[in-house]
């Protein structure tokens, strides 16, 4: 029997696959080393440290009330976690972040989707509008936070919504000096900054919907709302997944705007800021407790992200 001839391309493929195999570790090593040094090792060390009486520059031995000479002397079990959950400021920050996230996720996505749909339905001049709406995203949260601090403290309070103004609204005055009002101030700032970004994603999603869907619906006499409900929304499910994921993650990690607007005063600390300030709340600084909060923070973000992606991807349409 004559053996099947080996094709030249198969040989070449074999050679190149061998080269890839040989070079896999050398080429992936820079990424792995960098990743290990900056993310993986600190993450593991952080997890371990959350069970220790860590004071930042040294480890404390609670039994002898002095510096620990070995790793095990500093072990305090779940004490840091217990303290974190008993810490009123941490629990406040936790609920404040949740409340903020709920309001922000809804507001940002509604505004972004509305802008995307509006821009999609005008024939001319969408480009400049898109540029303007996206612009705030390019700028830092800290810088923008300072401008908005001025807007809330002076423009809102003394001009737009003052008692003698056309539109007197006490709720919109002194927004940076009250726990609840500051939450909405943060939402206003972040809708202003972030909606343009999400709008871009929704726009890309809208462009992927075949126009004949709408034409067919129009022939059947569907109203604009029916078309939106029955075509646009189901076809945009993957955009919803992305936008919800991004806004939720961003809401939980929000820091710059929180620092710039109120700096956590009036009980307005969110989780990211709380973790940053825990080490300043006591002397000596309790890094162990801060690290326990950081681990809890990671668990919260991981759980929410996974649930959210699962829940929305299930509803994505394949076509």
């Amino acid at each position, binding site marked *: 029997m004559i053996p099947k001839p080996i094709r030249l391309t198969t040989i070449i493929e074999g050679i190149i696959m061998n080269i890839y195999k040989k070079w896999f570790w050398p080429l992936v090593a820079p990424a792995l080393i960098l990743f290990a040094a*900056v993310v*993986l090792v600190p993450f593991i060390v952080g997890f371990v440290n959350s069970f220790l009486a860590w004071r930042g520059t040294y480890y404390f031995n609670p039994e002898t009330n002095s510096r620990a000479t070995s790793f095990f002397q500093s072990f305090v079990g779940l004490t840091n976690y217990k303290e974190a959950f008993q810490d009123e400021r941490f629990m406040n920050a936790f609920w404040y972040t949740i409340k903020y996230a709920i309001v922000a996720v809804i507001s940002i996505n509604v505004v972004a989707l509305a802008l995307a749909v509006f821009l999609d339905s005008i024939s001319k001049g969408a480009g400049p509008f898109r540029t303007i709406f996206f612009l705030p995203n390019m700028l830092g949260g800290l810088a923008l936070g300072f401008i908005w601090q001025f807007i809330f403290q002076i423009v809102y309070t003394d001009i737009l919504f003052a008692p003698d103004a056309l539109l007197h609204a006490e709720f919109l005055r002194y927004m940076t000096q009250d726990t609840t009002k500051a939450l909405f101030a943060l939402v206003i700032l972040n809708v202003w900054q972030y909606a343009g970004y999400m709008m871009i994603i929704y726009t890309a999603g809208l462009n992927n919907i075949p126009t004949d869907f709408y034409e067919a619906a129009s022939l059947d006499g569907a109203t604009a709302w029916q078309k939106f409900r029955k075509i646009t929304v189901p076809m945009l499910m993957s955009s919803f997944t992305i936008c919800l994921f991004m806004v939720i993650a961003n809401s939980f990690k929000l820091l710059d705007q929180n620092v*710039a607007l109120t700096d956590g005063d009036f009980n307005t600390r969110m989780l990211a800021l709380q973790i940053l300030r825990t080490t300043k709340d006591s002397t000596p600084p309790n890094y162990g407790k801060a690290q326990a909060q950081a681990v809890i923070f990671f668990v919260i973000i991981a759980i929410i992200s996974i649930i959210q992606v699962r829940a929305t991807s299930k509803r994505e349409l394949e076509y």
Partner: protein
Amino acid sequence: MAESYTVTEGNYFRKKKIQHGILYAVLTLVAIYTLAPLYFLIVNSFKSNVEIIASPLAFPTTWTASYIVEAAKQIHFFSSLVVTAFVTVLSVLLIVLVSSIGAWIMVRNKTKASNFVYLLFTAAMLIPFQSVMYPLIQIFGDMGLKNIPGLIIMYGGFGLAMSTFLYHGFVKGVPLGVEEAALIDGCNIFQIYSNVVMPLLQSVTVTVIILNSMWIWNDYLLPFLVIGNSTVNSGGILTTHKTLTLELYFARILAGQYGNPWQLIFPSVFISIIPMVIVFLSLQKYIVKGVAAGAIKS
């Protein structure tokens, strides 16, 4: 019959026209709303504190650059601009090089190890910076890397996960045939990467550059933790190596001790965002496209 048809058609177009009019009006209002804070920023960068409080919305009575000059001195504008640009460019370069070559070889060498590494990077996107920052600063401090080079390495490590993920998605679309052809032409592995693969990954590279630059340029927390308010002794002269955002933060803190001197804050914010606004306006087409592409692939 024919007449009634044209009447409804006329109605239809009139209705469309009104709808469009309303849409344009709403969009224009939103655009004004979006630009209003930037208008406040510009006009108030030329006013004294008294004038800012008295007439925050009006044009300045005289357009004087003195407040801007003062603010530029306060935030060491030129040195901090150079530091920020240096850190951003090198960090992004590091991210692009390391993640593109890593993602490429991960796609090309489909083994269990390769899949595991990819999974590791993907899962790492869930890790928030806050849960690693304290140990990170401690470890880098022990290694003598609480400085600008350390900052660049940290950005490199943090940008890696998302960038590797993006590259991974795009490399799958590069046909193996072109790489085989390059091999026959005598290219080695690095030549295949730089002459064949990278040019085909141009669009995702633009996305990776944009997303990482936006974040690194504006970041406040990492420079705050790494550099803080320290001074560097370079040749007997005490200088600071702060980024723009960090300078802005400390300028605000300092100013805050004596109330709210908006005459310092406004021009500081103004000059610190100018570079980013210029970059955006000149590259807006790529930026908007790049951002959309990045989000859709992830």
